[in-house]
């Protein structure tokens, strides 16, 4: 019997493969009395070797995929398993107390973990997590529980998980992971964004999927319609193979638009860009015919490491992106950390409302050394392409003026030192806070461009935490309130001769595109995989008709009404 589960379509495409449950298990450690402790110690040693071998493999692979830097963590895990003080203490406990190795390991590890957790230094406290990680791996082997490690997957699978953490996704092998589905999350959750950048189909928000599925069960993930089919019938498999083929054929059709401009039937041209997180993502944007990078999220340079990236490192990353885009526009967003994106090494206090707290530009204006380092990296790289710099989370004109003057100060210093800096760097802001959207007329006089960040703009306008499932229905991109704010931003920018882009999820959305086109949006920046579909859609509609459509939806009562209306005209 097949089971169909409805979820949220997070990344397009269809895949049919075996299920792989990625579930981090809770272990039960039971104390057992033993007589043959020698045998137990031997078993313990074997499992250490097994864990070390795994870690060696992981280290090698990570070093190949993500670089030496990221692999270093596994070297220290291996050393923990070789630590004589740690291992000897466990063996002694087994021998003298005549207990099982799991129990001894758990107790001794807890001692070391609490020792590190109680240290003054935040950095040292973080090391407790390493011990916990290694202990978990070793315990898994001792208990005979299958270790869940996404990097060891070596056949085509669909990942089934409650949620995927950034470290899980970093370890996924693109060659074998054909798709995934997670119980929680929405279109903008980390795992959804990852799926789109990996270009694999994904459906999220499939509640209880884990309880209904076993490893190796056949699964269909339909990332176009947001459906997951467990244990499909032969007919369903056949039907989906046809759908998959049709989708792939459509992809080929879209691919023909790769080197085309983006023009409506009545000759109105817009620009389609891609959103990226690392220099490696540029290729994907170019492959899908992107005309620009509309959003380079620089925070990934700062994440998954132990200290701030140096100016030199940043310079090389920015230079790489600018060079591979060959003079096409590259909009770089300065560090947007805080909220749900933490940097443990900055040692910032926990906040009650991180989304309303010390984050993004607020943090950069306070921690100026860090901000200036980034700006210098950017300015030095500016001569290698068409750089535009954008500040995130601007709430007041004063914040923009401060950030801009810091940027100009650094530029002047560099030039004094004889370092070449481009003279054509546009400076803009993200519009994602309602106060800024409302004051767009005044901002438009001072900035070179706006980029509308819809994810946060919607969150702040409707006062909705998009991660909270109970209120997520309020996350309404088509709410006329949002559309009116967008209209205000675009009108005021155009009135001052400035351009407006959008880099939120909405820019690639089939329903939103006609409205945005009608409102006059100049640049649409989206996941690379959405670009060709958007170009195809835009090439089939008329700008003058969409102006009338936009006019009409602005005066509708509800988001549903807007959505229903656009759906009827799309047919």
């Amino acid at each position: 019997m097949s089971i169909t589960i409805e979820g949220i379509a997070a990344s397009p495409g269809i895949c049919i493969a075996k299920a792989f449950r990625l579930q981090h298990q809770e272990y039960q450690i039971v104390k057992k009395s033993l007589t043959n402790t020698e045998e137990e110690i031997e078993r313990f040693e074997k499992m250490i070797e097994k864990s070390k071998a795994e870690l060696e493999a992981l280290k090698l692979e990570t070093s190949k995929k993500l670089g030496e830097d990221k692999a270093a963590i596994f070297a220290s895990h291996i050393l923990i398993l070789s630590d004589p003080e740690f291992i000897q203490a466990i063996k002694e406990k087994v021998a003298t107390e005549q207990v099982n190795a799991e129990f001894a390991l758990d107790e001794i590890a807890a001692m070391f973990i609490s020792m590190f957790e109680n240290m003054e230094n935040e950095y040292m406290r973080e090391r407790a997590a390493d011990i916990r990680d290694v202990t978990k791996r070793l315990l898994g082997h001792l208990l005979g529980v299958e270790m869940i490690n996404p990097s060891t997957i070596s056949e085509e699978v669909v990942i089934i998980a409650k949620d995927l953490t950034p470290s899980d996704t970093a370890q996924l092998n693109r060659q074998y992971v054909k798709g995934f589905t997670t119980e929680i999350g929405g279109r903008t959750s980390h795992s959804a964004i990852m799926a789109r950048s990996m270009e694999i189909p994904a459906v999220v928000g499939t509640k209880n999927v884990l309880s209904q599925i076993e490893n190796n069960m056949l699964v269909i993930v339909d990332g176009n319609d947001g459906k997951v089919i467990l244990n499909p019938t032969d007919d369903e498999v056949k039907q989906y193979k046809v759908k998959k083929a049709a989708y792939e054929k459509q992809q080929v059709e879209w691919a023909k638009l790769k080197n085309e401009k983006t023009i409506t039937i009545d000759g109105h041209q817009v620009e389609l860009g891609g959103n990226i997180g690392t220099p490696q993502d540029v290729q994907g944007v170019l492959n899908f015919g992107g005309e620009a990078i509309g959003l380079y999220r620089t925070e990934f340079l700062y994440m998954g490491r132990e200290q701030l990236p140096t100016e030199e490192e940043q310079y090389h990353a920015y230079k790489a992106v600018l060079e591979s885009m060959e003079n096409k526009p590259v909009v770089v967003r300065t560090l947007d950390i805080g909220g749900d994106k933490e940097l443990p090494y900055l040692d910032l206090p926990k906040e009650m409302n991180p989304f309303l707290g010390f984050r993004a530009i607020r943090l950069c204006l306070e921690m100026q050394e860090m901000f200036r380092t980034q700006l210098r990296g950017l300015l030095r790289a500016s001569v290698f392409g068409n750089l535009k710099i954008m500040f995130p989370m601007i709430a007041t004109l004063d914040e923009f003026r401060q950030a801009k003057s810091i940027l100009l100060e650094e530029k002047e210093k560099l030039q004094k030192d004889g370092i070449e800096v481009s003279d054509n760097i546009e400076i803009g802001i993200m519009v994602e806070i309602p106060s800024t959207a409302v004051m767009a007329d005044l901002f438009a006089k001072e900035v070179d461009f706006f980029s509308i960040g819809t994810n946060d703009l919607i969150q702040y306008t409707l006062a909705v935490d998009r991660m909270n499932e109970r209120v997520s229905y309020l996350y309404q991109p088509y709410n006329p309130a949002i559309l009116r704010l967008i209209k205000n931003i675009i009108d005021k920018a155009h009135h001052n001769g400035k351009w407006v882009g959008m880099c939120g999820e909405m820019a690639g959305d089939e329903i939103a595109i006609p409205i945005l086109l009608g409102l006059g949006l100049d640049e649409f920046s989206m996941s690379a995989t959405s670009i060709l579909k958007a170009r195809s859609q835009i090439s089939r509609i008329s700008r003058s008709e969409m102006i009338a459509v936009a006019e009409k939806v602005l005066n509708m009562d509800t988001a549903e009404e807007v959505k229903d209306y656009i759906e009827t005209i799309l047919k």
Partner: protein
Amino acid sequence: MIEKNYTITSEAGIHARPATVIVGALTNFKSDVTIEYKGRQANLKSIMGVMALGIPNRATIKITANGEDETSVIEKIDEVMSKEGLIS
């Protein structure tokens, strides 16, 4: 037995990365090696022991090697510490 004192001259002290390199370099030596800082001692072959000392910049540490290959142990430690920029 050989004893040797060092003064650390690295901004971050002996943090995870250099500690990993030093401890890793000693894996195949037979001697017992200890590191002492502010009267507290740790086994230099124990990553957690070394880390737990939390040795900062400008700390003076004493390393003691005892065993058949003690001379080469100290040579190795000299080499690794200067390569990792811990001593100047």
